[in-house]
């Protein structure tokens, strides 16, 4: 299982999914209309490290975080 968490202002509970790559996750999330505004401008971390390749493989126990636009300071 891969745990997917939505951070900051994204008002959505974490999900547990049987997926093997970010590609698969992208397909699943694209079905969810409440996420439409977020997928375009959110970054993704796998086990807390930002990733930039949608082909990134995922394995059992990985944690994926969805990070919407930031504004620290």
């Amino acid at each position, binding site marked *: 299982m891969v745990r997917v968490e939505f*951070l900051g202002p994204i008002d959505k509970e974490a999900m547990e999914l049987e997926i093997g790559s970010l590609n698969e996750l992208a397909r699943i999330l694209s079905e969810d209309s409440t996420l439409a505004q977020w997928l375009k401008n959110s970054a993704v971390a796998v086990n807390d490290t930002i990733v930039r390749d949608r082909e990134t493989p995922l394995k059992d126990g990985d944690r994926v975080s969805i990070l919407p636009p930031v*504004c*620290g300071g």
Partner: protein
Amino acid sequence: MMEIHEGALDVKEILGRWLDEEMNSNYGAFIPFIGIIREEGEIEALSFDIYEPTLRKWFDDWQERARAEGARVRMAHSLGDVPIHSSSYISAVLSPRRKVALRLINEFVEDFKANAPIWKYDVIEGKRIYAAQRSIAMDGAGILFIED
């Protein structure tokens, strides 16, 4: 060297402690950037969420980058509500060399604004409203987006 505090930062305590720890470390230039919440419109306070594990990785990468130039970075940030006219954010660079310190404080603060996983909310009449207009998509944003 990266601190998260509940509520407003005690700027004097933090800078005083950093000075105590660094005055003898033979850096010639110490540049803190102190962010202070401005009074604007109806805003009573700002409020912050932080995703600490990724923030720590971002900060540790920066510490490596600073070290490669003989410098050091430090940072403090608030979690939760911070009233106007108080500080939510201090970044600092220490370097033996003035020009390195001046360049790095600029790069560090700008990269912080673009890539530190912190979310800001305006607090108006006690309600928390995501500061969408002022927020910036992080480097690598959109990788889960599929064009129709």
